[in-house]
């Protein structure tokens, strides 16, 4: 991986058909960040204190949340050097990045709010009010909306990502936790308490509800399908985004949690919290084709794959 980074830095990185993305996996029980080159499989483990869970990655920084020490960090994507750190009094938890406006959003599990931070130095520039126990956060692909899953309020809150005004609150299933916007603008929300997934228009509200597996945790998308990690079932549900029917349930490791897609759309990666592995699902065969060991307790709660 080191070699690849050197090549990138030198600016002679050739276009390649291979995905050479990097996965940054927060390992909560082991207090490390597993940094895995998805091309070579080589891995570094960067020390990351405070039982990290939330993650949001980009070229200008890897942003992590350590709920135990209430810290948010910005790390250099290549060296891992800490570039900024903030302590947020409360229960920092989920995190999302607004690349366009260089803002970072962090949910406060205990105080029904979202902190708005400047991405550069992680200084707090605002707060947004949510329902009880906000967990997952997501930005819409067009940069218009910020959504939070307000777990103990059984709702999602929608904000204008530019003005930071609240636009809507929508009732969803029980205990929404992870959520993500599809490219078509719809918002998909995993409800851990009702074993289903709410599909919403961010402004108009719920469109439908889709049954998935036991304790759906987080969702991502690849090639017109939604992939949902089912914590208590050791599976990933694959949902056709047109018909919203379940196409497959793929057996993965124990306690699957964070889930994200590679930049070429060919693979979905899921972190298996109990088993300390990261599974790679091939989206054409819908099977697990590769598995990497991680540090102890991988969560990877957020966008954790950085495109090369």
């Amino acid at each position, binding site marked *: 991986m080191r070699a690849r980074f050197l090549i990138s830095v030198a600016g002679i990185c050739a276009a390649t058909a291979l995905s050479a993305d990097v996965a940054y996996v927060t390992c*909560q*029980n082991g207090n490390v960040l597993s940094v895995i080159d998805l091309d070579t499989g080589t891995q570094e483990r960067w020390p990351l204190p405070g*039982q990290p*869970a939330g993650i949001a990655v980009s070229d200008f920084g890897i942003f992590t949340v350590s*709920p*135990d020490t209430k810290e948010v960090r910005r790390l250099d994507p290549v060296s891992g050097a800490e570039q900024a750190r903030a302590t947020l009094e*409360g*229960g920092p*938890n989920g995190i999302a990045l607004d690349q366009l406006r260089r803002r970072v959003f962090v949910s406060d*599990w*205990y105080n029904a709010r979202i902190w708005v931070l400047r991405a550069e130095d992680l200084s707090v520039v605002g707060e947004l009010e949510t329902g*009880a*126990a906000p967990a997952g956060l997501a930005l819409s692909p067009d940069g218009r909306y910020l959504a939070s899953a307000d*777990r*103990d309020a059984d709702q999602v809150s929608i904000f204008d990502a530019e003005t930071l005004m609240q636009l809507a609150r929508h009732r969803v299933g029980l*205990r929404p936790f992870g959520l993500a916007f599809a490219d078509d603008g719809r918002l998909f929300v995993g409800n*851990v*308490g009702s074993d289903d997934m709410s599909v919403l228009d961010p402004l108009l509200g719920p469109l439908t509800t889709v049954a998935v597996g*036991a304790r759906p945790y987080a969702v991502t998308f690849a090639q017109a399908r939604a992939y949902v990690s089912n914590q*208590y079932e050791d599976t990933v549900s694959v949902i056709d985004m047109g018909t919203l029917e379940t196409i497959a349930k793929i057996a993965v490791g124990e*306690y699957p949690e964070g889930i994200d897609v590679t930049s070429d759309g060919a693979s979905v990666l899921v972190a298996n*919290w*109990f088993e300390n592995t990261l599974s790679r699902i091939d989206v054409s065969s819908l099977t697990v084709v590769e598995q990497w060991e991680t540090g102890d*307790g991988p969560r990877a709660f957020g966008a954790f794959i950085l495109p090369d």
Partner: protein
Amino acid sequence: MKRRSILIGTLLAAALPGLVLAHGPTRQKVTLTTEVAAAPGEVWAAIGHFQDMSWHPAAFATTGDGGNEIDATRVITLGSADGPTIAEILYKFSDEKMSYSYRITEVDVEVLPVTNYSSHLTVKPRDGGGALVEWRGAFYRGYPNNDPPEHLNDAASIAAVSAVYQAGLDALVERFGAPGS
């Protein structure tokens, strides 16, 4: 204000036992294993019944419904007839894999300081003969809010679950013997 919201949280939790409300920030896990001399099938015959926890020294009685079917329930009474109870539900069971998985639906955190607890109990063949018994759990600490008291923090939850598992596994070694080298 803060005190009031904590109070309300406590009242809600008391009024709605078994419902999964707020939990601590960090899920904990414990895996303990032991090795015994008996064959896996013999050990599974002793511990592979969801309705019977009599092999565990802390269990005074087990009552329940549904046998070993998914969604079967049991209530374990601890220590003595009037002892505290733990209510649990079965969500995976396989005689073939010699493994079952269950969740706690109701327990006083003063009895076992955990929330959102799930667990697997598995018997596997041991290399060189005998059986390996593995007991693993995933859970949050007993105190769902920020800055927990010491007896309800992450370390206390790990210690309590570890003690339960260790006592059960030790009893199996006593019953079936340690494997020879």
